[in-house]
């Protein structure tokens, strides 16, 4: 009898169980690794495909294979012969302006609802909850007519779009309110006792502590318009120069255009995705904080 076997025979039940646990843990960890690798592959395949197909030169329509037979930058070059640069600047302007203004509005709203106790606070929050149950798209029908009368649609869609994006953004206060709720109120009170006005409390005490939520708000406010389809579709109303990238690229996949512009769509998609992905990855930490902190408190 070998020494090892002897050891196993003499091992106490607890030790035996420990060995068994170790084996199962190793086994289950391997299974989990396999699963995670599979998930990663599934999650990455579409993005890998879109990247590869954007370099395909031999044909512009949909094909059943992924790896191009001929590589080249033709699709990217062709992009700049279309309205794509215009759409890109439209989207970028709208997203940038919206990010700034929406952040200010959302922070005003959430800070107030988190910090102040006034008579209409509860009714106001309930009212906005009910308001949020209406499909937002419904309002676009009238907003389109009104903006059209003001001359802010079609070719001039960008200012109109910005107006639509920021106007109701106060309703999205939930996440940042959840964050402000976690900052101890005693800080405010101490400052108030020392004679600071409410405004000074906000400027000198709360804002410096709120960096994560400010960044989170800016990030989401930027990404919203960057990928918006519905509102942009209404307001540009078929006028190419007023479109954003989503509406423009969507049209390339129409039945009559897809054969000529499928690979161009891929190239455009890559160009649209890169900046926002880089931005997101850099600020990922704050996004995760916002989502985990705010979403659950509702």
């Amino acid at each position, binding site marked *: 009898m070998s020494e090892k076997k002897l050891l196993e025979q003499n091992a106490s039940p607890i030790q035996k169980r420990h060995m068994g646990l170790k084996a199962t843990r190793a086994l289950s960890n391997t299974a989990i690794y396999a699963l995670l690798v599979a998930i990663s592959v599934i999650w990455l395949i579409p*993005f890998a495909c879109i990247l590869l197909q954007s370099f395909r030169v031999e044909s512009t329509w949909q094909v059943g294979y992924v790896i191009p037979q001929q590589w080249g930058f033709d699709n990217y070059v062709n992009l700049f012969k279309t309205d794509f640069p215009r759409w890109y600047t439209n989207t970028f302007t709208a997203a940038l302006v919206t990010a700034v203004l929406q952040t200010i509005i959302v922070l005003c709203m959430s800070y107030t609802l988190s910090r102040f106790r006034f008579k209409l606070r509860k009714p106001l929050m309930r009212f906005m909850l009910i308001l949020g149950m209406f499909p937002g798209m419904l*309002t676009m029908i009238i907003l389109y007519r009104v903006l059209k009368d003001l001359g802010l649609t079609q070719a001039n869609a960008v200012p109109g779009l910005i107006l639509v994006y920021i106007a109701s953004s106060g309703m999205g206060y939930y996440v940042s309110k959840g964050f402000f709720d976690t900052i101890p109120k005693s800080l405010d009170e101490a400052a108030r006792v020392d004679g600071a006005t409410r405004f000074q409390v906000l400027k000198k005490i709360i804002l410096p502590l709120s960096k994560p939520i400010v960044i989170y708000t800016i990030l989401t406010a930027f990404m919203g318009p960057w990928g918006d389809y519905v509102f942009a579709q209404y307001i540009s109303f078929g006028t190419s120069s007023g479109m954003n990238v989503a509406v423009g690229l969507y049209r390339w996949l129409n039945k009559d255009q897809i054969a000529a512009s499928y690979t161009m769509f891929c190239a455009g998609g890559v160009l649209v995705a890169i900046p926002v992905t880089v931005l997101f990855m850099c600020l990922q930490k704050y996004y995760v904080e916002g989502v985990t902190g705010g979403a659950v408190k509702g």
Partner: protein
Amino acid sequence: MKKYSDLEYLKLSKGQKLLYKITSFFCAIPQKIAGLFVALWNLILKGYNIVKNEAVDIWTTFVQGDWKTKVSFLVMGFGNIARGQILRGLLFLLFEVVFIGYMILAGGYWLSMLPSLGKVGPTEEYDFVLDAYYTVYNDNSFKILLYGVLTIFFIIGFVYTWRVNVRQNKLAEKILKSGKKLKSGKDDLRSMVDDKFHATLLSLPLTGILIFTVMPIVFMILVAFTNYDGAHDGYYSNLFTWVGWDNFNTMLNWNVAKGGGSVQSYAATFGEVLSWTLMWAFFATFTNYFLGMFVAMAINKKGIKLKKLWRTVLVLTIAIPQFISLLYVSKMFAKNGIVNGFLMSMGWISEALPFWEDPTWARITVILINIWIGIPHLMLITTGILMNIPADLYESARIDGANPWQQYTKITLPYMLFVTGPYLLTSFTGNMNNFNVIYLLTGGAPTNPAASSAAGTVGYTDLLITWLFKITQGAESQYYLASVVGILVFVVVALISLVVYNVLPSIKNEEDFQ
């Protein structure tokens, strides 16, 4: 039905407990409805009392007030100015002047036109000089409705301001009588950044919400009672006018198939779309919830390395705009797309799979792709909560010999459901209105031929929200139907939220038992 005491309840078996809960829920419904009516009656009483008290207060203010107060009833802000609060008084006065000017110049006209929404549509006139007919545009129903609503808002605002003006006079008299000083304009300005700071902060967001959300919603609710569509746009083609409850009757009528040889009644189409919407919301919410939790637990498990890498890979789908990823994935599953191409080249299938052509295939594919979109979000959300579960709970469970599945069902799941209950509700209603996933993936396809001629084209994967969008597109643009659908969406969402909110506390109570 027999009511159990707490002790008796605890003795029941699991099935009996569930049965008991379900029956007691349904037995409580009549009671709840009765309660609703009582609450409604109380609300009416309360409203009546408020109005009565206000009227009495206004009357006593007038009778007991000095002459400055009495003049203020007509000339707003007069009392403020006479007592030295120039800034406030001027603002009141300015508001009154603007209001009266507006009502005389425009508001009166819009209000008077509101009941008819315009009398004269566009007419053809003959031009003698050019010897040709040209169109003259007259009334504008759209503007009448819009400005009519705005005018009503304005009147309500004015009445409220007038009331504030009266109350301020009363207060000012009281303060002066007690020998104190009134606030000066400088004090007012200071209080804007101090004790009235909340009003300053809220003014901008609330104005936006009022103009761009409340007003349009009121407008669209009203549109549901008109015949506003592409052929009656209220100015260029024809005027539109009030039609009462007709649109609701059309939408909710099972028998009549209106609108030129349609195969199915509107109600049947609506019912089909609604049931798929609910089905979709259910699957989309819960598949994502459980699979997302599962992935989060897998990544969090002790001994798993490269946690950050796995998370980053998943988070990529959040970063990349949905219209790119979803549109691309939708094309991947097309008949001549990569997925079919791959499966065929491997020799696993001989014919392309009908991912988007067959109703059932399309519905399942949509739910599966939604998992791809949704898991990363849920993974992020649940990771944070999972880490908050006290580790000693698991430790003691392990010592008692619980296997991982038992640990999951007895510790993890109850805890998660407890914390994420409200989130599940919002994500359910959010999924009901998940325009992006459906519209960008399928656009509602495959088309439902039976429903196709009733209110636009309806497909098997259309949600109410995408249907609504499609109704408003194109030349027909039946805006009135879109508003009806929108209102019905609101009703459904509100009902679900109401029921769930009432059930949620019971879930919490159960938590206390365990």
